[in-house]
């Protein structure tokens, strides 16, 4: 593995076409396009936990998807060194009619793990997710917390170099949140890198090394967790003492 940052976004811009119709796939950028990300410059160091905060629709999830390679930026460059796993909100990418176990196998195979490797990891996944017998029930019967537990159990068992978590921990109960926190810190201890989007500021301040505050598709502030949270409240004109 090379030195240097785990993730680097340089001047990344991404627009979503608003125009419908077949012609939307032809021609360049339109003035009506929605600018989701603009001028994003960000480096995530190896072994770092980076938090991302911002209002709904400020581009947090889109940025994570660019990091994961799901969207390729229209301008600029996104580079990740190592295997990236994205854990997105509420079991995206999982199939409701399959059981938890089948979903875990499917997810593993999509990420290029063999059947044997996944079978080895399965006990750990079941234990960490605390799903017990539920692992063989269809996913559609799961609560949102159970899905989050399964999701985190699967992706952390796959041991990615870079783990991107998009507002998943918020739905877990306090006990699970503590467990996830420990898991994330373990990962970072083992030279993993974590990027975490969340609205749980308490959790964020306790585990993040730095926090990014995003606003309107731009990076508004990057730095110490407390300062980033202050920047968030300041930019929204809300007094944190009153709102909490």
């Amino acid at each position, binding site marked *: 593995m090379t030195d240097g940052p785990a993730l680097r976004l340089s001047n990344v811009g991404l627009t979503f076409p608003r125009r419908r119709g077949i012609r939307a796939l032809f021609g360049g950028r339109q003035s009506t396009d929605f600018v989701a990300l603009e001028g994003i410059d960000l480096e995530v160091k190896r072994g770092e936990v980076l938090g991302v905060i911002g209002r709904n629709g400020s581009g947090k999830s889109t940025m994570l998807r660019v990091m994961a390679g*799901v969207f390729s930026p229209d301008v600029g460059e996104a580079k990740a060194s190592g295997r990236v796993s994205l854990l*997105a909100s509420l079991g995206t*990418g999982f199939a409701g009619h399959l059981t938890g176990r089948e979903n875990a196998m499917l997810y593993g195979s999509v990420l290029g793990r063999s059947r044997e490797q996944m079978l080895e990891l399965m006990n750990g996944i079941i234990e960490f997710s605390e799903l017990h017998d539920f692992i063989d029930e269809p996913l559609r019967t799961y609560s949102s917390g159970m899905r989050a537990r399964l999701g985190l159990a699967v992706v952390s068992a796959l041991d990615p170099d870079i783990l991107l978590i998009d507002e998943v921990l918020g739905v877990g109960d306090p006990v699970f949140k503590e467990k996830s926190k420990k898991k994330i810190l373990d990962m970072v201890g083992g030279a993993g890198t974590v990027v975490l989007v969340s609205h749980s500021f308490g959790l964020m301040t306790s585990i993040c090394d730095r926090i990014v505050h995003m606003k309107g598709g731009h990076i508004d502030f990057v730095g110490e967790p407390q300062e980033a949270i202050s920047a968030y409240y300041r930019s929204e004109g809300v007094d944190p003492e009153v709102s909490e």
Partner: protein
Amino acid sequence: MRREVRGRFKNAYLGYAWTVIEPAMLAVVYYFLFSLLSGNDDILYAVWVLIGVIVWSCFGKTLQATVGSLTRNASMIHLVHFPRAIFPLTSTVSNIILSLLSSLVVLPLLVVFDVSVTWRLVFVPMAIGLAAAQAIGLGMLLAPFNCVQQDVEHMVRFIVRAGFFLSPVMWTWEMAVERGGLYADIILINPMVLPITLARHGFEGTPLDMGPEALVFCFAWTVVMWVIGSMVFASKERGAVKHL
């Protein structure tokens, strides 16, 4: 990635039996409908229709599956980045396998109608492969556009329905040629005439009596569609997934 194909099949285990049961029951219906009621003097007519249906539905199902392959897997696509051509490819491979299973139903029919088995029986799987190859080219061409406008899917459904009648499914190429007229002259423009007729000759064990220009045209059309379809898919897929 073959693992994903296997994973998909595992969940359609009951479907396996149906792929043989359905055409077998259809064969009985066709037998009564055509041989007894309409008084057609060709006792194999029901078999011709059955083979036509199997080959045509391989084309139709593959086309519909590849066109919808990106939209159906939207949640997976939003989660992990891997070559997205996997989606149309897995749909095609699974349809080829299912059609091959369906075509097993012609084996007992060989005995029932006392047709001798010849090496030309390999024409049947060849025809199925050819039908699927034609479908995937067109399907990959249309799949990115289907992400933007799902009208594409509806249009494709119409093409599959109309093509059922415009192709020699309920009739045979020989019948059209015998009757003559305008459609007999231009019939070879329809690239599905060859695979269906090929499969029928394979069953009967007689050589294909089409001119070389028909073979050349059919193969050229298949290859050209493959090339165009893959090129369009590769260049438009990045923009298209933003619409999912």
